[in-house]
């Protein structure tokens, strides 16, 4: 019996120390993945809490057909995307309210995201990459984020996203191609402005 199986069994029996160990083991993985998707530290922290609450409450539905980390990755992605959708909805409501003269504070432009793990000399380019990433379709963005931020292989990404290896390779290819297009437009405008 490996470590994750022991943790799951402890959790299913309602053992609090098992839950503590699980949080210790997976907190950075969950936080880093959530941060890559929501691109905001406070939101990523919020999503991380939601993920572990979900893990605690639904551990009995985990049948062990996939790895524990794969299951937690799936919950993290779902929660992060839900969080994003909620935030977008709030912004839209805030914008509409601001049109009618109320709640103008809600409508603001997003600040540039600065991932804490990026090397100092690459910070500027990384911020531009993250900005471009936001414009990708969800599946391409998830595949690219799992690969770049979490160092997952295509096979592992396929398991997490519950799809085939071929589909992941295709997603990665399209993600890179779209990112190149977005960045090309961005840098063309930037150089023209200079």
């Amino acid at each position, binding site marked *: 019996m490996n470590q994750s199986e022991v943790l799951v069994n402890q959790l299913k029996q309602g053992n609090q120390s098992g839950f503590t160990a699980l949080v*210790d083991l997976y907190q950075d993985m969950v*936080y880093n993945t959530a941060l890559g998707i929501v691109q905001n530290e406070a939101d*990523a*922290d919020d999503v991380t809490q939601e993920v572990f609450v979900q893990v*605690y409450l639904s551990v009995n539905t985990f049948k062990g057909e996939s790895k524990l980390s794969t299951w937690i990755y799936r919950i993290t992605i779902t929660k992060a995307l839900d969080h994003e959708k909620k935030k977008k909805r709030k912004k839209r409501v805030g914008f509409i309210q601001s049109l009618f003269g109320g709640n103008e504070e809600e409508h603001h432009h997003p600040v540039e995201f600065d991932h804490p793990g990026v090397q100092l000399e*690459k910070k500027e380019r990384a911020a*531009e990459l993250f900005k471009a990433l936001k414009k990708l379709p969800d599946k391409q963005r998830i595949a690219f984020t799992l690969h770049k931020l979490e160092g997952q292989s295509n096979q592992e990404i396929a398991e997490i996203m519950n799809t085939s290896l071929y589909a992941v390779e295709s997603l990665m290819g399209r993600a890179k191609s779209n*990112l190149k297009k977005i*960045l090309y437009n961005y840098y063309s405008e930037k150089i023209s402005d200079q």
Partner: protein
Amino acid sequence: MNKKDKINDLIDQALTSADGMERAVAKPFLLTRINARLDQSKETIWEKASWFIGRPSVAFLGLTLLILINVTVIIFNRSEPGTVATEQPAQENIDEFSYTAVSTIYDFENSEPQ
């Protein structure tokens, strides 16, 4: 370096900027915050019900409904004549204790047609 080469170089730099990136670390005391959230989600049905009933709007609505029901009952009771309810026991008493009541064969034979 022409403009296109410069752009392509910047694109390559951006795409490789995430290489060798370190994992972001979760904020301290995460477990404490998770446990607080779990405690919130463990509220019993009665706690949820009392929270719902305790809301000013619900309490006010409930009180208004209670008053309305009472007022309706009072109004309906006033408008209907109270004779039916009081007459019935009186009639029963007359039937039961009346001297004219037919209770024996003798009385039946000697009673006069009404």
